[in-house]
């Protein structure tokens, strides 16, 4: 196992997507933002499922709206590239439904889970172990799963579908998401166990 872990760092070092330190730094900041905004808590994702807390959709829509406009400018300037995932229709529909059910019950996603474990949540650690077994099962059953993941409809983007009006599509999309983020009611479930205060805008 030790040499597999060393191998993991080696792959990152030779892959050309940032040094190990840079990737650790990106992860550290990712974890820090999520923990600081407290969106790693059960009350945030499951709270959204119960319509008791709207922090997650507000933050998600807002950051995606801002990032979409920024990213488009960066790609135009040559400072970034598209990395679009293909539309594997069967996989996205079946996977999305399973993922949504699990997310509402678990109150986490794969990104917020480890951050929640880092603040001492034992239930999330048990869920993470469940996830490892889920990953094991998927790897084992992949030859079978592969058959239901298609058809592959290609790597489409919305601006790409409106040839010549790409700028406008990005601008409308980005602004619309920001407006939606503000329009979603500012519901916050205050956890008495954490003695939380409502965060100021």
């Amino acid at each position: 196992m030790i040499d597999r872990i060393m191998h993991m760092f080696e792959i990152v070092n030779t892959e050309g997507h940032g040094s190990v330190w840079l990737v650790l730094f990106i992860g550290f900041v990712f974890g820090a933002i999520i923990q600081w905004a407290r969106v790693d808590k059960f009350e945030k994702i499951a709270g959204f499922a119960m319509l008791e807390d709207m922090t997650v959709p507000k933050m998600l829509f807002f950051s995606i709206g801002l990032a979409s406009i920024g990213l488009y400018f960066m790609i135009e300037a040559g400072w970034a590239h598209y990395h679009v995932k293909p539309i594997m229709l069967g996989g996205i529909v079946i996977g999305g439904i399973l993922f949504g059910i699990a997310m509402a019950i678990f109150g986490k996603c794969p990104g917020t889970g480890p951050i929640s474990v880092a603040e001492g949540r034992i239930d999330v650690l048990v869920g993470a172990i469940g996830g490892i077994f889920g990953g094991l099962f998927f790897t084992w059953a992949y030859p079978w799963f592969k058959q239901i993941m298609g058809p592959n409809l290609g790597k489409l983007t919305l601006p790409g579908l409106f040839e010549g009006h790409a700028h406008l599509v990005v601008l409308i999309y980005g602004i619309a998401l920001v407006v939606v983020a503000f329009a979603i009611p500012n519901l916050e479930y205050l956890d008495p166990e954490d003695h939380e205060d409502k965060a100021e805008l």
Partner: protein
Amino acid sequence: MPRKISWFTGGILMALLILFTFSVWGANRPIGASTYVPYFAGVIFGLDPQHYEYMAQIEKPGAWEGVMLIGAFLGGLFMSLFVTKTFRFSVIPHLWKERKNHSVASRLFWSFVSGFVMIVGARLAGGCTSGHFLSGASQIAVSGLIFGGIVMATVIVTGRLFYKKK
């Protein structure tokens, strides 16, 4: 330092991190999270990429996300210990007690099952909240938008059916 930031500040910081990760000065790649789980399963159970097609496929992205998630864990630990000061061992979340039950066995059972299903779902879809929402929807990728719509709807329907009404 404030002990908590709002969705507004959090959203700006997260957008900057997405842009930095995408940029040629950063990782020149999107943020993703769910691939590290089967990758770690492979590391723990010693699955050989030569025998498992999926292991061979995820070797590179899995390693990248594995290192990133180690960083995320440390970032969460640092913040919960020194800034938000929320670190403490706990088993049942407060809202679960309020809307579901007080049973430790029930919470741990559902955590394990939903953790398992979540990873199978994420790998079927080829991404999760990070890959399809944060990175995918920021590129206005149609795959990310379809996934996002289905997940949001399923989350709310499940919330209705699984938890007690207040």
